[in-house]
């Protein structure tokens, strides 16, 4: 049952020559054959290319290359359909890109290949990362491997479902308002949104440029720390990446929480929280306390404006970012009598309803006469939200909260009500507005049906080490991460 191992367990086995990279990949492909008909995490898998990469990794291993040089040597890692992978389709869960094949690699793909990973597959997502359930994918809805009548979360639903279902050892997604942490929570895996500027966005198809960040999905915290380390670093092709050395995140996993101060956000303790989620998070906080950390209350007074602020800034940026999909140079095209008609017909047919809704909203908030009232004001509130966090981090080293207000909901349950859907991101959104780091890890299950519950940890800007240390110590003192879903 190779496919059930964590990434670190796999690399150890490969290092001891107990299994090969090809075997590791084949275990994933076999698991995809077995379960992806139910889970539907993948949009496509180029098996030939993946097998060639795995065979090449085995050759390197045979030649004596060690995982000390290439920490992901022979590890199959899958990609969200929003990341450019040379020679592979790039659709962003949308019809509008048609048969587009990326002619280049995203910087994170280069980093992973350099680290020896077998990069394969295109994972399903909400169209252009807009959504919280994958129901906005133009192709199909991915289902939660814990209960296939439920959504896996989104937008990186395919990433979370594939890792939980054992179809890959890790996956790489993107998080604009919770798109990594929310599905990680709902599928019972670990998901990390690094600090803005920590990971290069070059090759990530932009939804909201000032909020987007790439991060990993894994089965435990050690794997998450390792992958974050591989993905991180300054990239001259991304002017918003920050030239700051990448520390050893794996090295920060000391298990020691003594002297650490943890904040609970006063404004997050509101109604609407599912009692089982509440109980699991409360228990997790007690557990963290028992490990030697001090827990105090902190205030983020502008929290209530986070969702509104987010939907102004994110949609404004999206309205410009998505303007390039016009059918002129690449992707699907619906012809018209003139370029303008071609453009509107292509976009009319190519984008789904949620994407159109957000483009229209974003266009509106930037339009002449409304800019000051919406976009400019939202930017000011954003600064206040960031300052709230920076003030809180004067007092504490990290903040913990639920990742989501409820466990995974049923397919179709919120699809008709965008606002309800938006509110499922209430705990995750402000992290992106503030540009800080955050992650989600399992902290329990609901009773019946058995569904994962996620604990969110928020860290200071470039405070990943502390965040991972806390997550790791907590995880190791519980057994939640060892639970496997029915199809896993």
């Amino acid at each position: 049952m190779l496919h059930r191992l964590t990434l670190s367990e796999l690399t150890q086995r490969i290092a001891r020559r107990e299994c090969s990279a090809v075997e590791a990949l084949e275990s994933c492909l076999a698991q995809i054959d077995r379960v992806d008909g139910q889970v539907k995490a993948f949009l496509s898998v180029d098996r030939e290319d993946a097998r060639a990469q795995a065979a090449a990794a085995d050759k390197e291993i045979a030649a004596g290359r060690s995982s000390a040089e290439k920490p992901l040597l022979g590890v199959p890692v899958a990609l969200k359909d929003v990341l450019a992978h040379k020679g592979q389709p790039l659709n962003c869960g949308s019809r509008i890109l048609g048969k587009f094949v990326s002619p280049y690699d995203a910087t994170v793909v280069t980093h992973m290949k350099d680290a020896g990973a077998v990069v394969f597959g295109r994972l399903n997502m909400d169209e252009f990362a807009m959504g919280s359930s994958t129901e906005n994918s133009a192709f199909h809805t991915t289902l939660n491997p814990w209960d296939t009548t439920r959504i896996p979360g989104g937008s990186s639903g395919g990433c979370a479902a594939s890792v939980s279902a054992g179809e890959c050892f890790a996956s790489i997604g993107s998080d604009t308002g919770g798109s990594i942490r929310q599905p990680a929570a709902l599928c019972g895996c670990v998901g990390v949104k690094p600090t803005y500027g920590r990971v290069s966005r070059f090759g990530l198809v932009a939804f909201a440029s000032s909020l987007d960040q790439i991060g990993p999905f894994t089965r435990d915290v050690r794997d998450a720390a390792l992958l974050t380390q591989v993905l991180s670093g300054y990239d001259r092709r991304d002017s918003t990446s920050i030239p700051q050395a990448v520390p050893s995140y794996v090295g920060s996993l000391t298990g020691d929480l003594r002297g650490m101060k943890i904040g609970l956000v006063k404004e997050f303790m509101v109604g609407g929280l599912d009692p089982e989620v509440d109980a699991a998070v409360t228990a997790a906080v007690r557990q963290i306390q028992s490990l030697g950390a001090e827990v105090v209350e902190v205030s983020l007074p502008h929290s209530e404006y986070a969702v509104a602020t987010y939907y102004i800034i994110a949609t404004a940026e999206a309205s410009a970012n998505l303007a390039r999909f016009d059918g002129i140079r690449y992707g699907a095209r619906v012809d018209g009598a003139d370029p303008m008609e071609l453009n509107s017909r292509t976009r009319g047919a190519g984008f789904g309803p949620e994407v159109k809704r957000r483009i229209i909203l974003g266009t509106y908030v930037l339009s002449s006469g409304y800019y000051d009232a919406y976009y400019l004001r939202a930017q000011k509130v954003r600064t206040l939200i960031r300052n709230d966090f920076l003030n809180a981090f004067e007092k504490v080293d990290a903040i913990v909260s639920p990742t989501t207000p409820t466990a995974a909901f049923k397919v179709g349950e919120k699809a008709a009500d965008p606002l309800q859907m938006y509110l499922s991101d209430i705990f995750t959104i402000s992290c992106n507005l503030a540009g800080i780091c955050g992650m989600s890890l399992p902290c329990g299950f609901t009773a019946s049906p058995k569904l994962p519950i996620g604990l969110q940890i928020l860290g200071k800007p470039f405070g990943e080490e502390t965040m991972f240390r806390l997550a790791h110590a907590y995880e190791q003192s519980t057994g939640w991460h060892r639970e496997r879903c029915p199809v896993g």
Partner: protein
Amino acid sequence: MEYEAVIGLETHVQLKTRSKMWCGCANQFGAPPNTHVCPVCLGLPGVLPVVNDEALRLTALTGLMLNSKISAHAKFDRKNYFYPDSAKNYQITQYDRPSTEGGWFEFEYDGAGSLDGLARVKITRAHLEEDVGKNVHFDRFSGVDFNRAGVPLLEIVSEPDLTSSAMAYEYLTSLTAALVREGVSDCDMEKGMVRCDVNVSVRPKGSQKLGAKVEIKNMNTFSGVRRALDYEIPRQMAVVAAGGAIPQETRRWDELAGITETMRSKEDAHDYRYFPEPDLMPFVPVDEWMNSVRSRLVEMPLALKKRLIREYGIPAGDAEVLTNDWPLADYFERAVRGAKNSKGVANWVINNLRARLVQRGCGLEDMRFPISGIGELVELVDSGRVSSKIAQEVFEQMFERGESPAAIVEHKGLSQVSDVGAIEEFCREVIVGNPKSAEDFRAGKPAALNFLKGQVMKLSKGKANPGMAGAVLERLLRG
């Protein structure tokens, strides 16, 4: 009532950088379509822009040239609009925090609004943006060439200080000459490196209130700007004089018909939905960077011209020619060092050296004769050692063989003959050989003397001192 025109210009120039504004593709005109392109300038999904530092430097240099304030905090913005030649359907530009603000530009102009042959136009700003691709239309379809997409473009916005088409023309000519001189842009009109939007309104003479602004877009020749204004200004004045009102609108210039026509009215104006470019950080120039830009600033054409006249006493026309050909001016300044007759040197540099260079299609760097050569040649003529005719021959030798004039005169024996005895011998021979002309002169036809003089020069192979030859001939004929 008398009316006056109020004109402001937005001049777009392509910057002279090796690579494009946001990527490493070559900034090069004339390549086959879509050969200087990459994922970034094609706007493929997932790419990000990275600012070209040289473009920022050339922008700051322009700011210094225009006496502008260089912003301590410049940022980029997105200007949103759909057009097939745009790779991203937004243009990255500078909206409310341009790289340079304010300033002025002085140029030669003799007309209304000038003082002592000079005019000064205030500059609003110069901001950096990116060029778009080029649409190409075929029989049944259109194509887009993205080689030009992402080429750095500097937009220099003037205040509405211009008052006539002639003044606008002079402003554009002088401004682009200065930009070429500073190495900011090649400003090659043929290659579309300069484009211009013209804002023009009219108002009763002396009024302070501006009339409704008409914008004439996408002018790509200066003569076009002049002609468009020569059409548009009287058109507006006629409307206003007849009691009508000019609506604020955008017009296009029809080069063939020689008229402007409505493109879109104010109501149809684009809402560009500007907002800060989130993919780029604001640019804050540090002192060291600014100093290195400042050190690149060279003397502007007008300043050079004024100085050439003042320092060397050469005629304004010659100074103008030299100013318009900076390497030649530089050559002149080096050649004239130590020469007594700077006017003579200027004359030779302009009328002989330049002409030969053009004729031969070679450059100053190909000249092998010493830099002091022309000065020495002028000195040989001025001292009477060679005739100006022989001097031409000496110059040819200098040009071809790279030798100094003294050496050429020496070994070819080209020194002018000023010996009275030798000249008398030539003259006697000519008079004997041309009895008819000698008779004509004696009969009172002075023109015959010129013919005889020519024969003397011919006989002496040009070496006879022409002044002496004339005097000796006259003496012999009358005697």
